[in-house]
């Protein structure tokens, strides 16, 4: 019954229209109407995205739910949407996280709640658009446009250094993307179309491929973010309101990684193969070095931000280790596919886990207005239910088997082994480092004696907070215990991608 509906358009435009409605109602009477409309719009969007999963054909790598209409005829830009096993889970993650963010901001945001809710709804639509776009220009429009609401969110509702953080965020990302724009125009002039699938099929020389690859790299590396262009992320995370941090960590970072899968690997496979050492090097630096940096943090949000960078290093490692496997063992697509699938699973898992961690910090921050680890201690005594949730998410962040965090990391390490022992060795240090920084933080925040009178006065989470943490706990455990549906969805697409990148385009 849903097959006839333009589902992808609906998941893009429902939240955007909802956001405009919310904006129109204004913040009168504490913005209650705005919040209710926002909740309805986000739930509706989530409901609309479920048929994408239910109706998804897991036997094919073809694009599904395709919509195609001409948009700008004179430069052959089309409104071309479609999803495959790579993008569909990310859309689901977006719609899901948006509902949580709306609930999480319900009582907390007192200042201009309507604009806050509207920004997140519009952001959700734009992110869905970026994941669903099959036309490079359409993708670019969504990709850039979503900077605007995020810029506003950090700038208005952020912490004391919000202006610095949000300008840095915007300019870093904008700087990265303009190179991608030049590369996309070059590809358009080369192929005569802006279709991403046409780009995939285009034959390109090695020099051009290398330049295009580097242009994409700047754009996506800033977004992921990879070392050494990651410095905007800790600032943005620390200053952003809880909802902003959640969306940033859970979804916006995924856009960068998604870009690698959708653009870099299939459009410039030969350049990717010749520069994979660089990518693996940067990924391992992120995993190991940033892991140590996280260990030294005093601020909870900063710690989780660095842990995000470290985890995203795993994702990029999983993607690019494929080429090393090709060289190592000729045609062994299985290992390569495992790396990419591992990276994908890690993306989704990190979406849940980092979102949950930021929400936990948000719960504490709403009560004590401090993110300093030193201001806490013994929280478990006053907030036992909350402590239970936080320990669970911390375990998932550390990659404990049975939680979502484990599956992806394990697959990536396994695949790295097939390429080179030392890759796997270095990557595996994250199991120690991740456990160290996460659990040490948990120890200092939750356990020990109650030293501060403020902590002694804490009240445990209310029903609203229980709701969003509970939903996330189910998701984290569900993905950890039974990742098969996700793997099944992405399987054919990843296999197809591996075949595609194994063949030279020269």
């Amino acid at each position, binding site marked *: 019954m849903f097959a006839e509906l333009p589902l992808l358009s609906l998941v893009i435009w429902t939240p955007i229209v909802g956001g405009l409605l919310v904006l129109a109602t204004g913040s009168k009477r504490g913005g209650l109407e705005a919040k209710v409309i926002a909740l309805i719009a986000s739930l509706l969007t989530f409901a609309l995205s479920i048929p994408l999963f239910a109706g998804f054909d897991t036997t094919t790598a073809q694009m599904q739910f395709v919509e195609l209409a001409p948009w700008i005829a004179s430069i052959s830009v089309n409104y071309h949407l479609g999803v495959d096993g790579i993008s569909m889970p990310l859309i689901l993650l977006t719609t899901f996280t948006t509902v949580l963010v709306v609930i999480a901001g319900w009582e907390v945001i007192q200042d201009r709640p309507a604009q806050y809710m509207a920004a997140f709804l519009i952001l959700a639509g734009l992110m869905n658009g970026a994941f669903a776009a099959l036309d490079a220009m359409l993708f*670019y429009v969504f990709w850039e446009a979503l900077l605007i609401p995020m810029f506003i969110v950090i700038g208005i509702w952020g912490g004391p250094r919000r202006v610095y953080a949000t300008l840095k965020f915007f300019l870093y990302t904008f700087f990265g993307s303009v190179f991608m724009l030049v590369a996309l125009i070059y590809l358009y002039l080369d192929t005569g179309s802006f279709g991403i699938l046409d780009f995939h099929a285009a034959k390109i020389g090695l020099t051009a491929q290398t330049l295009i690859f580097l242009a994409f790299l700047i754009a996506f590396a800033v977004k992921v973010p990879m070392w050494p262009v990651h410095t905007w992320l800790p600032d943005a995370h620390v200053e952003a309101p809880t909802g902003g941090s959640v969306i940033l960590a859970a979804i916006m970072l995924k856009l960068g990684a998604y870009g690698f899968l959708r653009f870099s690997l299939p459009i410039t496979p030969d350049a990717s193969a010749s520069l994979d050492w660089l990518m693996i090097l940067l990924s391992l630096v992120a995993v190991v070095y940033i892991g140590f940096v996280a260990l030294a943090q005093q601020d909870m949000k900063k710690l989780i931000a660095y842990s995000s960078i470290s985890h995203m290093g795993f994702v990029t490692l999983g993607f690019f280790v494929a080429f090393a496997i090709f060289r190592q063992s000729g045609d062994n697509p299985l290992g390569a596919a495992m790396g990419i699938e591992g990276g994908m699973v890690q993306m989704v898992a990190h979406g849940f886990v980092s979102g949950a961690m930021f929400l936990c910090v948000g719960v504490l921050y709403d009560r004590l207005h401090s993110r300093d680890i030193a201001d806490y201690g013994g929280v478990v005594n006053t907030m036992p239910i909350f402590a239970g949730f936080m320990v669970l998410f911390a375990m998932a962040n550390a990659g404990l088997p049975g939680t979502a965090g484990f599956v992806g990391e394990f697959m990536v390490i396994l695949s790295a082994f097939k390429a080179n022992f030392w890759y796997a060795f270095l990557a595996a240090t994250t199991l120690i480092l991740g456990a160290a920084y996460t659990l040490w933080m948990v120890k200092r925040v939750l356990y020990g004696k109650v030293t501060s009178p403020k902590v002694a006065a804490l009240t445990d989470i209310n029903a609203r907070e229980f709701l969003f943490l509970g939903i996330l706990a189910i998701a984290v455990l569900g993905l950890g215990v039974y990742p098969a549906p996700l793997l099944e969805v992405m399987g054919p697409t990843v296999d197809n991608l591996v075949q595609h990148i194994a063949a030279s385009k020269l």
Partner: protein
Amino acid sequence: MNFETPDFLPVVPELFVLGMACVILLVDLFLSERNRVVSYLLAQATLVGAALLTVGLYSPTDQITLNGTFILDSMAAVLKFCIYVAAFVVFLYAKDYLRARSLFQGEFFLLGLFGVLGMMIMVSAHSLLTLYLGLELMSLSLYAMVALQRDSVVASEAAMKYFVLGAIASAMLLYGMSMLYGTTGSLDLGVIGDRVAGGAVTDLVLSFGLVFLVIGIAFKLGAVPFHMWVPDVYHGAPTAVTLYVSSAPKLAAFAMLMRLLVDGMGSLHAQWQEMLILLAVLSVVIGNVVAIAQTNIKRLLAYSGISHIGFLLMGVLSGTAEGYAAGMYYAIAYAIMTLGGFGMVILMSRSGFEAEDLSDYKGLNQRSPWFALMMMVLMFSMAGVPPFLGFWAKLAVLQAVISVDLIWVAVVGVLFSVVGAFYYLRVIKLMYFDKAEDERPIEAAPDLRYTLSINGLAVLGLGLFPGGLMALCTAVML
């Protein structure tokens, strides 16, 4: 000697504007101060009438008349139409602003109309002489308009500076034209084009003439290093005049660029391309970098305008039909955006308060969420962020330069658009992230509010559906 009556039909809009301007001049003499609005209404009616005439007379074939001195082609028709719209919007924004400063006189609208007439002639020029005539008519009107507020020291200084520098530029242009005439023996741009292309003239004098022409054009566009007048004039002139100077004349200057360099000296493309690359790159770099240091929004928009001119030149320098179309698209997009930008300055100002300082925009989101949103749309559009009009204009231009393998020019362009994003974002920061110092709500007449809203929404609408305007520009140039 036999005398043929030329075909006057293509010139009817020009004649109409001229006739109406004379009528308004007379009517205005007999109006009392209270009825001054009649001059305003007549001026607006003139523009509407001219627009109707231009649309009505449109035919897809080029018509050359008045002994080869006047051409009516699609480009002329489209640009004229845009000039009418721009002038219409300027008059509308200006009305209450002028009234609050006792500048609401017939002269403003009259000079405005004569300026429009000059631009129309420039756009339709098919001879060096017509082009010069139109240019001078436009320029003299602009000089006088800048000086309209004669008690203001800054305005007088700006007018003086504009006049002196403008006169030098005109002299340069005229000198270049004389060289062109000397080598080709004709004033007719079509004939000049043929002779230059035929290779009959490969004089050094021709190259010299070309240099002088480019200097003259660069001055009128306000491209670096001939931009010195732009910030001072934009800053010194009353905002209503700044609005006028910054919008429609750029369209006319673009037409002059096309007529002289492309129609007249298209075959010397390799020579003028290098000059335009220099102008474009310098404009984009200096315009964007210097804008960062500005604290006055009119100066900021002036420097941002300089950088936009750099992008416009990037389209033209590619030397392809797509590039010319991109340049035209950019010129129109820039006119729409700059109207909105200075329109906001007018909206924010009151009698005795010009709202020129960037700090006057603090907390606009609290005072008027709607106009803060409109200003944000305009700023993001100027910064080249999708999905707004300015992005597509930049895209078209970048496509044009990349298609002729000048990738480095495109890279410089995008890099400095990132630099440029900083100061646009700073305006947004002031509006959204800072507390208002002045809590009073915005007061403005409904016609200004509605037009400004339409202006802002047009930037968004043309950004969501850029196909129509883009296709129009392409169709005109092919």
